[in-house]
């Protein structure tokens, strides 16, 4: 695969993301936010984590207007696959490429730790190498991860298999660690080509560092 990894002022997970995809044998390119085109023959665009534009106004609210995001919008509209991790998820919701919004965690703290996640839907281009109800162990690190979507849209998303992941304990019991509606940790769009999650699969690819569960998550994009 050819993976384009976006970089905004304040992005800080672009090299972790690059390391992860290159370890899986893919070629990667880091793309600057001011670029007016995406590289040719891209199979996946990743919007990585960080604090784009200092999280000013709202997390992701400024980054969504960067020139490269216009191209990502077109890429997604043509069926291209896009993955937003953490701040990338916030940017994709602000850009209306994903439903809902991410608010401040209910405990008002920046939560940084390993977290268990339950796979809710695997019938998609992202989590197809994971089992339904499988419990994964992946780091989280965010202050604005409190996912909100109104009841009407939530019902549609559940019906359409757009809820990807929920926070849970080690036994798979769901728990909303940050206030997210129905403990949601990750979602996709209606056409299932744009994905967003708060946890960091790219930080869970070395057993030595605590977990290799990110491998089977990211490998899903290989098809």
């Amino acid at each position, binding site marked *: 695969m050819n993976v384009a990894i976006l970089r905004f002022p304040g992005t800080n997970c672009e090299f972790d993301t690059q390391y992860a995809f290159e370890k899986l044998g893919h070629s990667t390119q880091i793309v600057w936010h001011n670029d007016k085109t995406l590289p040719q023959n891209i199979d996946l665009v990743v919007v990585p984590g960080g604090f784009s534009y200092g999280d000013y*106004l*709202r997390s992701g*609210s400024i980054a969504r*207007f960067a020139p490269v995001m216009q191209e990502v919008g077109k890429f997604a509209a043509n069926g291209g696959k896009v993955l937003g991790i953490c701040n990338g998820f916030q940017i994709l*919701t*602000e850009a209306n490429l994903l439903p*809902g*919004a991410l*608010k*401040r*965690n*209910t*405990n*008002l703290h920046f939560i940084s730790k390993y977290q268990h996640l339950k796979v809710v839907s695997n019938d998609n281009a992202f989590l197809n190498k994971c089992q339904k109800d499988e419990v994964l162990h992946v780091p989280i690190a965010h202050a604005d991860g*409190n996912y*909100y*979507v109104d009841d009407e849209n939530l019902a549609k998303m559940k019906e359409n298999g757009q809820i990807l992941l929920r926070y849970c304990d080690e036994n798979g019991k769901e728990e909303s660690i940050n*206030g997210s509606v129905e403990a949601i940790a990750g979602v996709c769009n209606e056409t299932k080509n744009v994905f967003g999650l708060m946890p960091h699969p790219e930080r869970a690819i070395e057993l030595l560092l605590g977990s290799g569960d990110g491998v089977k998550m990211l490998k899903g994009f290989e098809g």
Partner: protein
Amino acid sequence: MKAIVNVYLKQGVLDPQGKAAHHALGSLGFNGVNDVRIGKQIVLDVDSSVTSDMIKEMCETLLANTVIEDYDFELKP
């Protein structure tokens, strides 16, 4: 002219900061506070050519995320 824009979470959307401040007020002995909502005020210094419609568009496009936030504004000479 100044445009004073207020942005706050919609009613029905839990406001974690408001809730924490509400709890703290109670702990400090301030009784009778039913609810606290924390928003932000954005003050724009604008030319006289800027209309209410333009401010509305600025709010809808950037200043508020209408999925979770409401806004209001006033233009002051």
